[in-house]
């Protein structure tokens, strides 16, 4: 059992509160991702778990043991940093073998274990070379090998893919996930890239300014964001937002965004009680807007094409409806011209609603 549990962890640096009351629980053998923009407190959180930073308040558990007073070297935690420190004058083999040498493992065992981990990470060709000749991705893998060779119970990775080329990043992402599964490790992985986060994570914690906004499985944070921040952070292109109010019109319940509106009658039971009297934000993902050449017989709204972006397999069309610009996702076979008039229709069952003041969801949007 090597889960991680944090209870009300806080940390200040000077006057800045870097972590505010962070609590989370990571079960054994989970791949847990900490996602957030730069400055959210991700690295500090990892360092608190590793024992490199001691928190001002709160408790840190690894397995069943409270480790607040346990030094990093006794926590059996491996950590790989964004720019991994390797010894430039040692070969790949010597770099990877180093932690075993300190533990006074026999030479023959060192050889065997280094070889094994190098084969797994496909870096046997780097063992005789020095780091100066490595590419960014190779350097990352050698650093990873050096941590893995110790067989830590818990592996912490701080932005491990940040400095890699887009194509290599895609591949390494999958390798890391396989590695975690095969070694049966608990892994905590930090990233600013939401796509990476949803792709690798069993669960994700989305952080903002030292606080956790939401923890959940990738589909959960994507489909049911609890705050506006999570809604905008997860997903690309970003979720559209428009100011609106909830109104009763005859026997219908309508979200009125002045330039367009969405009928919420069928979802009345999902709205919270305060929603009626407050300023709201309507959120709709680009793939939940349908583009039509002519008005639909039910609710649709006229707009004008502002911009189209070709993603290869699909297109993002920015449509201006009144004062609001909406990003809409559509198939690659449809062609749109700048200035073209068209009609948009919202998938009512997929619309999100948030309180404008607090940013908290005012409506349960659960479509798993």
């Amino acid at each position, binding site marked *: 059992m090597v889960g991680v549990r944090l209870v009300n962890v806080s940390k200040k640096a000077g006057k800045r509160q870097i972590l505010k009351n962070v609590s989370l629980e990571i079960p054994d053998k989970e791949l847990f991702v900490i996602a957030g*923009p730069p400055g959210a407190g991700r690295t500090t959180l990892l360092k608190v778990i590793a024992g490199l930073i001691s928190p001002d308040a709160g408790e840190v558990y690894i397995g069943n043991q409270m480790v607040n007073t346990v030094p990093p070297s006794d926590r059996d935690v491996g950590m790989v940093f964004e720019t991994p420190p390797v010894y430039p004058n040692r070969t790949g083999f010597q770099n990877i073998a180093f932690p075993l040498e300190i533990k006074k493992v026999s030479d023959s065992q060192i050889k065997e274990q280094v070889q094994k981990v190098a084969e797994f990470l496909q870096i046997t060709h780097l063992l005789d070379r020095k780091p100066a000749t490595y590419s960014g991705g190779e350097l990352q893998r050698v650093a990873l090998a050096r941590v893995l060779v110790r067989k830590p119970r818990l592996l912490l990775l701080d932005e491990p893919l940040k400095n890699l080329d887009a194509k290599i990043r895609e591949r390494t992402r999958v390798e890391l996930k396989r590695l975690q599964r095969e070694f049966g490790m608990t892994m905590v992985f930090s990233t600013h890239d939401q796509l990476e986060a949803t792709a690798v994570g069993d669960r994700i914690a989305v952080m903002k300014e030292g606080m956790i906004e939401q923890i959940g499985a990738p589909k959960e944070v*994507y489909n049911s964001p609890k705050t506006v921040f999570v809604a905008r952070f997860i997903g*690309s292109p*970003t979720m559209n937002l428009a100011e609106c109010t909830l109104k009763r019109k005859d026997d219908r319940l309508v979200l009125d965004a002045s330039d367009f509106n969405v009928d919420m009658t069928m979802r009345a039971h999902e709205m919270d009680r305060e929603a009626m009297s407050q300023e709201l934000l309507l959120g709709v993902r680009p793939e939940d807007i349908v583009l039509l050449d002519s008005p639909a017989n039910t609710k649709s709204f006229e707009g004008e094409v502002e911009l189209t972006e070709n993603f290869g397999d699909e297109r993002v069309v920015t449509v201006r409806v009144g004062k609001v610009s909406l990003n809409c996702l559509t198939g690659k076979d449809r062609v749109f011209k700048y200035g073209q008039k068209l009609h948009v229709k919202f998938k009512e069952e997929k619309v999100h609603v948030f309180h404008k003041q607090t940013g908290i969801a005012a409506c349960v949007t659960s479509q798993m």
Partner: protein
Amino acid sequence: MPKLVVRNLRKLFGTFEAVKNVSFQVEEKETLCLLGPSGCGKTTILRIIAGLEVPTSGEVLLDGVLVNDLPPQRRQIGLVFQDYAIFPHLSVFENIAYGLRVRKLSEAELTRKVRETASLVDVQSILDAPTKKLGLSEMQRVAIGRSLALDPKLLLLDEPLSNIDAKARERMRTELGKLQKDIGIATVYVTHDQLEAMTLADRIAVMRDGLIEQMGTTSEIYDNPKTLFVANFIGSPSMNLIDCELVYNREEAVLKFGDLALDVTELTQRIEGKGEGRELVLGVRAEDLSLDAKKTNPVAIEAEVQLAEPVGAKSIYHLKMGGVSLLAKGYGMPNIDAGSKVWATFNIDKVHLFDKKTEHAIV
């Protein structure tokens, strides 16, 4: 007349040939993107156009005039650097005015020009602000504004969106797209990010080892890659590329790979007998492989899901099919998880076929 003509450009650094015989043109108001991995020569070409690097041979023409011997400042080219190179001690106004001051314009003329440029890049409301407090997207606008103030014939952008975190990059990419539409100036844009190139460029030149592999619009390059390199480089996730051989069986044409056989009789005409007896590579994009929980299509092939990566509303599925690893991408299907069996169907119309030796596309 094209705005920019680059003809038979070569550049040697010692014995290393960074650019090997590259030619292209950029039309009025067009954005051409030089796309390729690091070391492909794209930045060298940009620096040669700007006059910061002297070509070993070849010509650069601006508005039909040979500029090879003109120093950078006389070429009327605006260059925007990767880090924007904003002067931190100067206000936004002074940053935009910087190049104009060198030209010794009258104060009234200068103010008019700065205001005009500022409104073009939408920074007119922050002209007095110190640049230290600017956000990234404002810095980008100021940097582009500083170049535009000098009425350049051509704008060169060197990886303007790298070094920015993913979410901000997405926003700035869209803003840059809108800005390009508004200012409508001929632009050469250098990047290693295929998504940036596809969304911002009118045409893309995909580069590899100092040569242009393919040039065309986003759709042309994405839908009809001419070489294996382009097929692999463009698109995320990368196109599935599988070694295979073509076997004719009476009227039937079949591609064999792993333990599998894919009926490609429909493609016989397009293959034109070029495939038989050669080593081939089958290419299929992840979105052109559709998955089903049941065998609803008679030609569907059984596969095992090894890993599912949720990416937004869609997921990338890592499949094992007859001993071959493949990726499929589609809207999330419930209950398809690691370990489950699925039925995969190739969209035969969208299949690519390459000659493994020459690396060129056959279909």
